[in-house]
């Protein structure tokens, strides 16, 4: 959640670049709504049936606190035509891209 907090904090930088940040997890709607309230500038997805994580194949089998399947942390950079321009998967579950890293990747995407 630190990662989402950092992205929310930098929302003005994303808006300047005409980028929306979509945050997706398998949280149920109630939990996702709380997250949305906490981070109003992000677009929070409640992928409770796992359809999105299965389509992107970012499933981390059994990695949830109750042994359920959850999303493995992954970040995709998608342009306005819906084309994927880059993707990032951290090596360890405790590491993430900083907001600065994300903005740098966005700038690289927009430069092309």
């Amino acid at each position, binding site marked *: 959640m630190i*990662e989402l907090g950092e992205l929310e904090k930098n929302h003005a930088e994303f808006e300047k670049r005409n980028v929306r940040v979509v945050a997706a997890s398998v949280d149920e709607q109630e939990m996702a709504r709380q997250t949305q309230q906490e981070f109003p500038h992000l677009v929070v997805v409640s992928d409770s049936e796992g359809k999105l994580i299965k389509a992107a194949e970012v499933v981390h089998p059994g990695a949830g606190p109750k042994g359920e399947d959850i999303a493995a942390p992954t970040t995709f950079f998608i342009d306005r035509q819906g084309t994927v321009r880059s993707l990032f998967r951290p090596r360890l579950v405790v590491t993430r891209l900083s907001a600065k890293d994300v903005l740098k990747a966005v700038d690289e995407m927009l430069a092309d």
Partner: protein
Amino acid sequence: MNESKQPPSPPPRYSGRTFLFLGLLLVIAGPVIYTVQVQNKSLMAPWYVPILATLGALSMGWSLVQRRTIWRWGTAGLASLFAAFVWLMMLVGMATPPYQGPVTVGHAFPSFETRLASGEAFQQGDLKGDKNTVLVFYRGHW
């Protein structure tokens, strides 16, 4: 009167206690620094934790070489177990599986249908439009 020259006192036998405490400090430093790192909202890989734990265990091992006591066996042993555990976590336990999915750079994001927190539908078509998207998958609210 002959002044008998005192033989120089033998150098104090170095007990290695310094290495014991240094080792303890090094082992504890890793988790302490990590706590500070997280409080500063930095999410970089904390490789210093296993490295400091290993140096700490080695330092304690050296103090054991100086003087073998039960305490030193115990603490050096625990420090070594801790260092081994942290290395295992960093290399295996906390590793994410490499991405091998269908999403490829240069191609459209795969077709999908899901919901937003607000309950509205969200699908592949919504990725096209007037904005670029950063799509972040996170592990969940827990």
